[in-house]
């Protein structure tokens, strides 16, 4: 069908005075937006092909290229925006479901930006984390209802000796735990949705920092088995790449029920993306569609979920935590309660703004609730029911900074997952075209010409830098509050105040408005 011309989304501006026709942009752009004319020895650009990833702009040695939003807009209309018109046009041409990548970009309220933190003044001393010990270590897993200690060991029965903590021994058998040196994990991103170099960067950074990355539902590439001690392996509805050795390789297992970008729906990895390497980790033939159905075929209830949780615990002989990831939906609190009662050691909740490699735009932008409200609701519910200790809570979905992390923990999360932030650290500029597999940054692609652009050594370094920086900032904020352990902030909502929030929002978040004292 003939395409109706619509104004392009971006304009590629080339400064002819600066351009030396070196053709780096021509060779690099996976969308073929630049071309070279040998007759005139000039490089020209086709703005219709530009996705706005800014890769050419970054690598142009003379700084000749600037990518701009097209100033030639449609007639200004608050209701029928350019995006709406473009989407309708595209669907009129293709008759297909619109796809997108990354997290929801609609301007829903971001509650993090309406929550402020407390600090000590006069009445309680703040702590300087540069000179005093500051504890960010976090354990993910089921905590006992009570612990039993030996009275004290025989050597301390000497007369007049006051027993020290070292004289006691723990009698209670603790459930398996994940030990995190900072309360931040890398969110599930499969090999397939991202490149092997991106996976290796995440795995190495997790190992170096002392945290975990998550395989997503793409199986585990043979080169990643060595990072098993820092890997959370995911079991999703398609069961791709799930086998005994895979389950044994990880430090924890996560059952994926849903993700924030696409609650309630499954996923399709199109056959053309199932290359030889992808086929090996997903354990399916080359070129076949990998269909992840919306529900797990063996889970139609909490009881069924319990069956899978314990099937996994049995398979790994109760040696590692088994958690469940859900997307934040209206009924998230009772669902989380059911998950904890089903025996999950952690519950990961992915909010409305959680990212994806590919999702229908209409789902990503319209389904689910913001993570801030979900954390508060779930933490409340589990506390009310007296089962909060039975599982850790990992919050995900649009965590952008150390302040988002610390606010999530004060609201009641044990730790957070970051996905988009990690990708940005590796170079991503959020052009949202992950689903095309043509990522110029070498992240969301399997094309060997593109993937080699991400050097795993550099990727690792940048991720480690990010987590170090955030951890230091968290320590600074904690110290400012006079708190020396992240443990003491967990669920400590008195440290939060709302700015510009309605009474209902404040009630749901369980925080006081700014201006109100303790």
């Amino acid at each position, binding site marked *: 069908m003939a395409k109706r011309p619509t104004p392009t989304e971006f304009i590629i501006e080339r400064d002819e005075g600066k351009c030396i026709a070196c053709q780096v942009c021509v060779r690099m752009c996976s969308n073929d937006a630049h071309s070279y004319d040998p007759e005139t020895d000039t490089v020209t650009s086709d703005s219709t092909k530009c996705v706005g990833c800014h890769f050419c702009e970054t690598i142009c040695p003379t700084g000749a290229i600037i990518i701009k939003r097209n100033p030639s807009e449609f007639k200004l209309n608050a209701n029928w925006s350019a995006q709406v018109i473009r989407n309708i046009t*595209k*669907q009129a*041409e*293709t*008759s*297909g*479901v*619109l*796809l997108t990548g990354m997290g929801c970009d609609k301007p829903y309220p971001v509650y993090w930006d309406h929550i402020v933190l407390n600090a000590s003044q006069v009445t309680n001393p703040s702590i300087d984390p540069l000179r005093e010990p500051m504890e960010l270590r976090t354990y993910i897993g089921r905590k006992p209802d009570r612990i039993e200690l030996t009275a004290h060991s025989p050597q301390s029965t000497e007369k007049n000796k006051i027993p020290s903590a070292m004289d006691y021994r723990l009698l209670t058998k603790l459930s398996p735990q994940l030990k995190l040196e900072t309360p931040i994990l890398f969110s599930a991103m499969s090999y397939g949705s991202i490149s092997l170099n991106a996976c290796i960067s995440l795995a190495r950074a997790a190992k170096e920092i002392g945290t975990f990355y998550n395989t997503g539902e793409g199986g585990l590439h043979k080169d990643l088995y060595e990072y098993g001690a820092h890997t959370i392996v995911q079991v999703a509805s*398609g*069961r791709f790449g*799930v*086998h*005994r050795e895979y*389950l*044994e390789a990880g430090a924890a297992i996560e059952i994926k029920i849903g993700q924030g970008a696409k609650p309630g729906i499954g996923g*399709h990895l*199109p*056959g053309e993306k199932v290359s030889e390497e992808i*086929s090996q980790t997903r*354990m*399916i*033939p080359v*070129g*076949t*569609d990998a*269909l992840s*159905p919306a529900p797990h*075929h*063996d889970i139609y209830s909490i009881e069924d979920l319990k*069956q899978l949780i*314990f*099937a996994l615990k*049995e*398979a*790994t*002989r109760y040696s590692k935590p088994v958690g469940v990831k859900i997307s934040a939906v209206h009924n998230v609190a009772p669902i989380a309660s059911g998950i904890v009662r089903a025996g999950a050691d952690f519950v990961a909740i992915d909010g409305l703004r959680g990212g994806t490699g590919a999702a229908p735009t209409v789902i990503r932008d319209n389904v689910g609730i913001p993570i801030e409200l979900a954390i508060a609701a779930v933490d409340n519910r589990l506390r009310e029911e007296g089962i909060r200790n039975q599982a850790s809570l990992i919050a995900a979905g649009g965590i952008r900074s150390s302040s988002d992390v610390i606010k999530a923990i004060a609201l009641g999360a044990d730790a957070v997952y970051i996905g988009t932030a990690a990708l940005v650290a590796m170079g991503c500029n959020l052009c949202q075209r992950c*689903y*095309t597999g043509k990522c110029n940054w070498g992240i969301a692609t399997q094309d060997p010409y593109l993937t080699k652009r991400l050097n795993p050594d550099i990727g690792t370094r940048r991720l480690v830098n990010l987590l170090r920086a955030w951890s230091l900032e968290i320590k600074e904020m904690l110290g400012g509050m006079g708190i020396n352990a992240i443990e003491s902030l967990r669920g400590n909502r008195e440290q939060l105040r709302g700015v510009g929030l309605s009474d209902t929002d404040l009630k749901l978040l369980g925080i006081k408005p700014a201006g109100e004292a303790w």
Partner: protein
Amino acid sequence: MKKESKVFRINARGLYYKELNEKVHQAVNSGTEELVLDNVNGQRYIGDGLAGDVKITINGVPGNDLAVFMDGPTIVVNSNAQDGIGNTMNAGKIVVHGDVGDIAGHSMRGGKIYIRGSAGYRTGIHMKSYKDLYPVIIIGGTVRDFLGEYMAGGLIVVLGLNRERSQRSTVHSPQKKIKGYGLPTMDYRLVGNYCGTGMHGGTMYIRGDIEDYQLGKEVKKFRLNDEDDKMLGKYLKEYCACFSLDFKEVMDTDFVKLIPHTHRPYGRLYAY
């Protein structure tokens, strides 16, 4: 060191599944090659994540998720089995002398499930094959709705033997024995509805015929060719040997073959 080769028996009466499975693991770890579990009564996860080539015989009815994530062993069940047998199984063999519940062979990637009796709903759902891993399910009796839903690889065979022999009642079908229970007419249907919905790989052979309205829209029906006969024969001979059935008698009736239209059922769903 000489391997322990004698049969090791475990009495499962009154044992919680965790205790029973722990005993099984201990036995397997100490080199036992043949295990017999007596008085099994609904204990789940027997053979869960078990590797190696141990043979386990189960007397009694094992619980859900029998042989889930299993990677090699052989399990023989001398009566019925419940839901989810061979769930996400990688390799090995399950032989059930009675009926099985729902989702037998869910996401199974390799190995064999041979059922003498009938199977429940969603049997073989999302089965897939990979390289030399090729999952096979053979059902001696009938099977309910959603057979081979989302099927991506492997082989499912339905024989419908109990329909012919139902009067002689060597058949394990509680519905017929308990008066007024369920819908007895359902038992006489070879295959339920929505057979192969979302199927995008693999093959099914049905002994007898299946109405078009019972098929998912992704499935096409064919006659068997020589290659199919060879394939079917290969596995059916082994099946018949398991249950002392006469291979020739079983092959007496015509089969139909069900395969998907396309390996890309949702290829044109999106606007790129």
